[in-house]
């Protein structure tokens, strides 16, 4: 019985073994080949600070720890990594830019702040307004009662990040923000580093429910296959016992009786299609990407 079991799953186990081996080898190689970018070449930035904790959500030790982590990840990613915490409404501030940016929604106030902050300090690893990312976490509530955050990208980061990657990063950070802001910001830095490192983002943490459904579908298909193949099917046709020429139609006609025509007006399709997000210009005229969330 065991022999039959092993024989049945032979190739399945071999595939698992190969994938396991390849993954381990890839992990080992990766650990030896972490690349670093050349030294930062942007000399126009007016500050060496990367952690701006205006909302005072971090202890001094946590701030220092974050600075060290950011320094290390900046070299790995070749991007400036900025963190800003605030605790104020940005409505008045943002609305003063409406003459340049057009009408702004409440979730865009923090975007305006993030873009301006990045531009005003001339952040960018390679050049002013160049490669980098900024995460602005506003602990102050806007008029609608929500607290908004913004993850902004610029240069190479802007080109790398897709909408899905942005949503993934924001979701991961916001999940931890209220419980432990420090861990949330560490997540921001690490996730940004991983995303820039891999060049694309993959939702590695597949939700348990999705995984479960997927496995149930696969297992269900396997079980169905094992149970199939013994269907008791009728294999005679209607004319199996009728010899050629032994079926006669003495009458075979279809006579038209009458017809009826109805009409209706086709309703117009009034539903519109959704717009896309993505890249935008800051008040200073520089291109930024990014997305926001609230907590």
């Amino acid at each position, binding site marked *: 019985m065991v022999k039959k079991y092993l024989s049945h799953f032979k190739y399945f186990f071999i595939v698992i073994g190969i994938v396991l081996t390849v993954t381990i080898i890839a992990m080992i190689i990766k650990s030896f080949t972490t690349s670093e970018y050349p030294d930062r070449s942007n000399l126009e930035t007016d500050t060496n600070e990367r952690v701006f904790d205006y909302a005072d959500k971090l202890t001094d030790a946590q701030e220092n720890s974050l600075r060290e982590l950011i320094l290390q990840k900046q070299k790995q990613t070749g991007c400036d990594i900025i963190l800003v915490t605030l605790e104020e409404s940005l409505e008045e501030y943002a609305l003063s830019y409406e003459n340049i940016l057009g009408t702004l929604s409440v979730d865009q106030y923090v975007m305006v702040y993030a873009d301006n902050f990045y531009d005003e300090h001339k952040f960018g690893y390679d050049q002013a307004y160049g490669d980098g990312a900024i995460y602005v976490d506003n602990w102050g509530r806007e008029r609608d009662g929500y607290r908004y955050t913004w993850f902004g990208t610029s240069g190479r980061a802007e080109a790398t990040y897709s909408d899905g990657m942005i949503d993934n990063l924001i979701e991961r950070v916001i999940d931890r923000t209220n419980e432990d802001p420090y861990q949330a910001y560490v997540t921001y830095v690490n996730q940004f580093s991983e995303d820039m490192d891999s060049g694309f983002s993959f939702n590695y943490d597949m939700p348990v429910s999705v995984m479960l459904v997927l496995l149930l579908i696969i297992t269900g298909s396997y079980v169905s296959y*094992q149970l199939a193949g013994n269907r008791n099917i009728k294999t005679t046709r209607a004319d199996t016992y009728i010899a050629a020429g032994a*079926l006669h139609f003495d009458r075979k006609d279809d*006579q038209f009786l009458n017809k009826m025509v109805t009409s209706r007006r086709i309703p117009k399709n009034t539903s519109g299609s959704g717009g896309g997000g993505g890249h935008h210009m800051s008040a200073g005229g520089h291109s930024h990407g990014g997305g926001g969330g609230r907590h």
Partner: protein
Amino acid sequence: MIFICKNCGGSTVYDPDVKKMHCPYCDGLDSEEIRKSEQMSTCPSCGAPLDAGEVSLAQKCDNCGNYIIFDERVEGENRPHLILPFMIGRDKMKELLQQQFKKKVFMPDSFLSESKLQTIEGIYVPFWLYDLESDMDYEGKGTSVRIWTTGEMEYTETSFYSVNRKMKAEFTRLPVDASLNMEDGIMDLMEPYDYSALSDFKEKYLSGFLGEKYGLNAEELEARASEKAQIDTENLLNNSIQGYQSITPVRKEFQTSIKTKEYALMPVWKYDYQYRGKQYLFHINGQTGKIVGEVPISVPKAIAYSLTVFLGCGALIQLVLSFLEVL
């Protein structure tokens, strides 16, 4: 009667592989001679008691293992007109079962074990073959719908037709199972048989197999023959009505007239497999090899194999995700 080998005195049997009488003791071919028996209650070879029951035609003696044919059940009005000799022998039949089920891992291991397969018996099953004519006179109302648009308007045209069919179908050798021991539904699924191999009845084809005489006579089964003919005729009628979105019958008259009927024996291998107190019956057409039956499932095996797939795929997906993460 039994068939005895002239060379060695052993019991000879019909061998579907060589299509001749074969003595398994001395390998003699067509070396048989008939030993008649006056009575059905004892084995003509060893004298052991036999139970012929009501319908047994041929039987295997539990004592000496010889195959006995009951003379009086193949004589007179009981004599079959036709027989379709087994064309698939025991080895070929076992091979067919192995082929179909060896990859079905949920089945109990014993299902395909040699000791179990050895218990499979070849049986000649009685059938009545009817030549009959069926007449169908049909009138229906067909509806055809056409839809088109012009500008902002959509138009629907519904046309009604009177559909008339008057048809006659001549059925040749429509088979109806006349056995008391075989399920009608299963015997229907055994069809079709290739009638080109039908031959006049000869007792020698029975030797080596079990057999059953008809338990229901031709008149008793005429209604079932008509019912089968009606189903086929209605299917042919439906095939002749095309192009309608819906069809409503207005009038349908059906009648059959039976022309001739023949009593025939058809070959079926029967596998009676017992598992955890439940009976699983498999039938294999002795001519075409078609298999009909419910697969027995070993629950512990099904759980073990399914769990392996579930956990193995889970591990595989996780590994692939980890690999992508590393990339």
